[in-house]
């Protein structure tokens, strides 16, 4: 995995709360056996009309959304299914960070393993971002701080090990494999 230390980008805002992974990538696109190309289907049922043409009312189809790498969303983003296709689709589309007041557990875990930054902020910061779509934000992973164009900087929580892996481009599997001796000892010691 490529090291990741900073995401600087304009934001695109989807204000809805409880955006579930079925919205991010509907189940009918999960019949793939690879990770590639899922960006086309990102938010498919919101993004495209029944005839397959872009829905002009959906924010990702607006000219302002083009090139935005940071998605601001309502509370409890990524709830529902454990499908890793959700972060794969966001990344393939070009999103590198998701900002919300709350991000669902499994989605957050999947995002971190693929270099998609889950950034949890308080209500005030979230509200400011909702009110200022297209704002240029700076997400610094080293200091775990999100800086708004107003200069206001807020720290965000991020699991220490995941942060270390992202900053250094380390695959977690490498770390787990390095503990193989412990795993073998555990198995040998189990009496049940």
């Amino acid at each position, binding site marked *: 995995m490529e090291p990741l230390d900073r995401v600087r980008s304009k934001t695109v805002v989807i204000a809805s709360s409880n955006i579930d992974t079925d919205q991010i990538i509907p189940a009918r696109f999960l019949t793939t056996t690879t990770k590639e190309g899922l960006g086309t289907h990102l938010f498919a049922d919101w993004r495209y009309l*029944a005839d397959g043409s872009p829905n002009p009312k959906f924010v990702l189809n607006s000219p302002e959304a083009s090139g935005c790498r940071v998605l601001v969303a309502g509370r409890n983003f990524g709830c529902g299914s454990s499908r890793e296709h959700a972060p794969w689709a966001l990344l393939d589309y070009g999103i590198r960070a998701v900002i919300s007041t709350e991000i669902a557990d499994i989605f957050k875990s999947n995002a971190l393993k693929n270099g998609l930054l889950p950034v949890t902020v308080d209500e005030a910061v979230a509200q400011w971002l909702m009110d200022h779509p297209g704002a240029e934000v700076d997400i610094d992973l080293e200091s775990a701080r999100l800086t708004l164009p107003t200069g206001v900087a807020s720290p965000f929580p991020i699991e220490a090990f995941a942060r270390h892996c992202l900053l250094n481009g380390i695959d977690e599997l490498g770390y787990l494999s390095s503990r*193989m001796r412990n795993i073998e000892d555990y198995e040998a010691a189990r009496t049940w």
Partner: protein
Amino acid sequence: MSAHTLFEKVWAAHEVVPETADAPAVLYVDLHLIHEVTSPQAFSVLRSLGLPVRRPDRTLATMDHSTPTSTDQVFGKVAIKVDAAAKQVRQLETNAAEFGVELFGMRDARRGIVHVISPELGCTQPGMTIVCGDSHTSTHGAFGALAFGIGSTEVGHVFATQCLLQRKPKTFAVNVEGKLPEGVTAKDLILAIIGRIGVSGGTGYVLEYRGSTIRDLSMDERMTVCNMSIEAGARAGMIAPDEVTFEYLKNKPRAPRGEQWDAAVSRWRHLVSDSHAKFDASVDIDAANLEPMITYGTNPGMVVPISGAIPQGGDRAAAAGPVAAVHERAMDYMGFRSGDAMLGKRVDVVFIGSCTNGRLEDLQAAARILKGRKVAAGVKLLVVPGSQQIKRDAETMGLAQIFKDAGADWRESGCSMCLGMNGDTVGAGQYSVSTSNRNFEGRQGVGARTLLVSPLTAAACAVRGRITDPRELL
């Protein structure tokens, strides 16, 4: 001696390396369940790294999500209609054979929904850690196992090391007291719990369902409750094992036998939260005053008693965030208005099945209402057993005949219309009364409108062709 919760006991027994400030715990996985949708990318990683599946003896594969439910397609007289699904099925067959993983394939008598077959075979046991690339893995918590859904990258981690890197979650006691009234089921109970704590109320926690109501539930019912823990945001939900659990597991094909059984049971008896154990959060639920529940919106927390009306402006816990906007969007999608009564609303499709409510007792409940009655004109009723074993049992017991006589479509097992991956979908704008677990926009098909209910309520709605209180037909 300090007091521990059930979760803490199971967690501690599986810590290969405890967590520190710098690194999560290395947690050992006893049983890894896999299926065709979330495993292919993980097998690809193994192949690219030249790694084997480290413990194929702790890995079990089945196919359920994208598999057809029509007998012709399953048993090969007709090709699988959805091309991509057929490819996924073939891919799992190839991967399982190459990596030496036991697979219950398309025509295997033991095949079924992954969360239905593992308990049914006795693979799911108290005190285990169980993972699967599927969020409804929480189902297995009904046995006092710590069971949770993982992503495909983690599926690869478990393949390669039999372990996962995990931060220890917090604990949440869901205390339920009182006798469930006639016509009110485990499904209604869990929907009420989600309505109470909200769709993200359990985020970061492992739930433990406790109290006299839970103790009185059968294993099928306990699985229904634990299954939907994730709909409250909790990755796992657990119930302490007891005589009901042991009775269910005894003589299951893969449960321990003889002396090993006795040793296992005495070990399992310790899997209860100590009386002074502290939980990080708790909620008290009164089961005696519950009604059959039904969802009206686009997440499982948007739920009301069936005799109730859609709230004005939405339920705050369910909506979370810009409450009014979420509620209005849901109303628009569902074609409902705030203040509408739920009883009497239109029904187009009824789905009875899924890992939530596709077990034998669920089918028995539905048959209780459908016996001697007919599905209303213009309504399509699809009944999909959770496993081939349940299908055979339901046929032997005469349940299948009751469904067929009523005019239902009786199918082979699988996830089917719960998520519509296999072609079993609900049409745009249609109302689907479903015993499944998610009423998200488009979950059962593009534009499909899902109302989550119990099997009793689903059957009653099929008979009347309108949203109906099942107690009128009992």
